[in-house]
């Protein structure tokens, strides 16, 4: 579904350039003439928001890297130097650390939107899987980044996560030693995590390119989950329609981001990371950042280390199989009342697991976490396949234009 590519630059130089490298045509067909369904709601602005956050994280990250020293003896002090002495270092650093949280917030909204409106269904399976890969890369990048300040929680987090590899039978310990660059988390671990933290964002950029490419082949899904039939009636041009909506959505998102950065910059940061890492003093209560808490809760809910790691990985891998777990021909939850109910139950399970992940583990809470973990998997492995064939769906509109126009008509009628 590429847009009309009858792009002819106005200037002679432009035409000369275009006939040799049609860069303008690519931009024009992807971001100007590209047809978008006219019924998209604000949930569809998060793609643009995520692109902005990725660029913002890379820009602030590169600046921080100019001042950061990836050494176990100097990392903590170099961050303190950034915060105190580098011009606007505090701003760049708060933008970066809080930016990671906002990046994940936007990512989760984007993913839940996909789940709700069935954006993973044919013909967008690959688009979805590329998204899952980006999510995995984001988690890895965020984890590596969290280790860099070399505070108490950085060190504890690095120890907990890298120790997970030792759950692998036979070769586990060897892999852990190889990751650490020694026999425990230490200086070599920090240096290599810095290298990876700098590398992975650019790999994410590559996958985002594939994500956008795949999107522009299959076209966007939409709140009614029906395919574009008549581009004239069902779609509008990306620019100005989607562009202005995305920019507005982004500006609202930036208000939240700036509130966090300028007024409550330490709200999401862990106090233990204001204490230098000390292998002899583990923080009383080891917790990851909020965006990883649900998985942490699952890990802790399972008494066996090996099976805990298996569950943790499965919880993410299962996402890649959703296109084949949910076979319902109707995409949007708008027309799937039962799926919609279970979707919201799933959201609650996710939030509940996140909360449990943040609390001190007790036997009672572990039991709740086990039940919620079961619920998490049941949504994908039991509810989705069963609903695929048993759910009584509501009638879907015949076309996107009809869906939009009926809504407008009803609204007008209601107003009168």
């Amino acid at each position: 579904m590429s847009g009309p590519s009858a792009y002819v630059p106005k200037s002679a130089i432009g035409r000369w350039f275009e006939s040799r490298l049609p860069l303008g045509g690519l931009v024009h067909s992807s971001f100007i003439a590209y047809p978008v369904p006219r019924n998209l709601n604000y949930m569809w602005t998060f793609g643009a928001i995520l692109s902005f956050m990725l660029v913002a994280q890379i820009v602030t990250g590169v600046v921080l890297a100019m001042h950061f020293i990836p050494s176990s003896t100097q990392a903590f002090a170099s961050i303190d130097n950034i915060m105190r002495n580098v011009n606007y270092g505090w701003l760049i650093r708060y933008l970066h650390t809080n930016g990671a949280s906002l990046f994940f917030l936007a990512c989760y909204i984007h993913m839940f939107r996909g789940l709700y409106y069935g954006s993973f269904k044919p013909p967008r399976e690959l688009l979805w899987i590329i998204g899952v890969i980006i999510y995995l890369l984001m988690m890895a990048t965020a984890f590596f980044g969290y280790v860099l300040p070399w505070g108490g929680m950085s060190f504890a987090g690095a120890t907990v996560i890298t120790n997970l590899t030792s759950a692998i039978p036979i070769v586990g310990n060897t892999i852990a030693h190889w990751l650490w660059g020694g026999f425990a988390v230490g200086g070599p671990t920090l240096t290599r995590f810095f290298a990876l933290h700098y590398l992975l964002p650019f790999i994410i950029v590559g996958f985002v390119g594939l994500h956008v490419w795949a999107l522009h082949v299959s076209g966007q899904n939409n709140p009614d989950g029906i395919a574009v039939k008549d581009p004239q009636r069902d779609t509008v041009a990306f620019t100005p329609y989607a562009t202005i909506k995305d920019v507005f959505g982004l500006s609202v998102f930036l208000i939240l981001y700036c509130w966090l950065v300028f007024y409550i910059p330490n709200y999401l940061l862990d106090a233990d990371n204001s204490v230098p890492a000390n292998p002899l003093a583990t923080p009383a209560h080891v917790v990851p950042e909020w965006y990883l808490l649900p998985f942490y809760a699952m890990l802790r809910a399972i008494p066996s280390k090996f099976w805990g790691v298996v569950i943790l990985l499965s919880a993410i891998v299962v996402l890649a199989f959703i296109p084949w777990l949910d076979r319902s021909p109707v995409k949007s939850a708008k027309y799937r009342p039962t799926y919609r109910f279970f979707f919201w139950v799933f959201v609650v399970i996710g939030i509940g697991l996140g909360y449990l992940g943040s609390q001190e583990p007790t036997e009672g809470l572990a039991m709740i976490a086990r039940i919620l973990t079961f619920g998490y998997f049941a949504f994908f492995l039991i509810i989705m396949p069963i609903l695929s064939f048993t759910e009584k769906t509501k009638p879907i509109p015949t076309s996107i234009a009809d869906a939009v126009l009926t809504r407008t008509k009803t609204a007008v009628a209601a107003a009168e």
Partner: protein
Amino acid sequence: MIRVRFSALAFAAAALVLASASAALAQSDAEQPNPPRQSWSFSGMFGIYDKAQLQRGFQVYKEVCSTCHALSIPFRTLADPDGPGFSEDQIKTLAATYQITNAEPNEKGEIFKRPGTPADDIPRPEAYPNDQAAAATLGKAPPNMALLAKALKFERGFPWFIVDGLPGFEYQEMGADYIHAILTGYTKPDDLQWNLYYPGHKIAMPQPITNGAVEYKDGTPPTLENYSKDVAAFLSWAAEPNLPERKRIGLRVLIFLLVFAALLYFVKKRIWESAH
């Protein structure tokens, strides 16, 4: 309509799960009270540091805390007009009263000591040149105070941890409250290492300061309550010296974004008019 009901139901269920879980937790934590919330000049959207209070707080640090605690910040930052705002001359005189070990050896290859300058960091307490030496004498190394106010936080539980992030209710002064609570938490006169607010109540630092220990020059009553508040405010500044500048820039940024977003909204409405 139905959609709204489902989501409302789901969120109500979530709130219930959270509330019951935190109620279960609150019970187990009952004997460990959270530090009581104090009023600070630097809280809220427009809060900034109180210069006189920071100067008093520095006096308390210098006369009491600095015996054991390091505070690794440069002398020059004490002249920060957003902070304690001492004059350049005061800082020069102050720095010169300390003997600093020079980083580089002299021409003869000897490591030597010299009077401090404003560019130097405040040196560690003389008696404890490193954490090991401090731990050997005191049982536990006293933490460096440069980031102490940011290193102290406590759990507020549901729903407060959400409220604490909301405009108008924001709570970023947990560290200051914590420091104030510890200093005023020595409530068992027969046990100087028992502290009401310290986890487990057994604290390595015996009661460091009591009424009248420091003589204020500005007429502020020399009470434990005032010492605790002043030094907590001073340490909050030490940990977050850019707070006033941050809030000043933030206000402009937020006003800009709010106006910008409003304008964009109307442009968006205008553009989409033809599409509906």
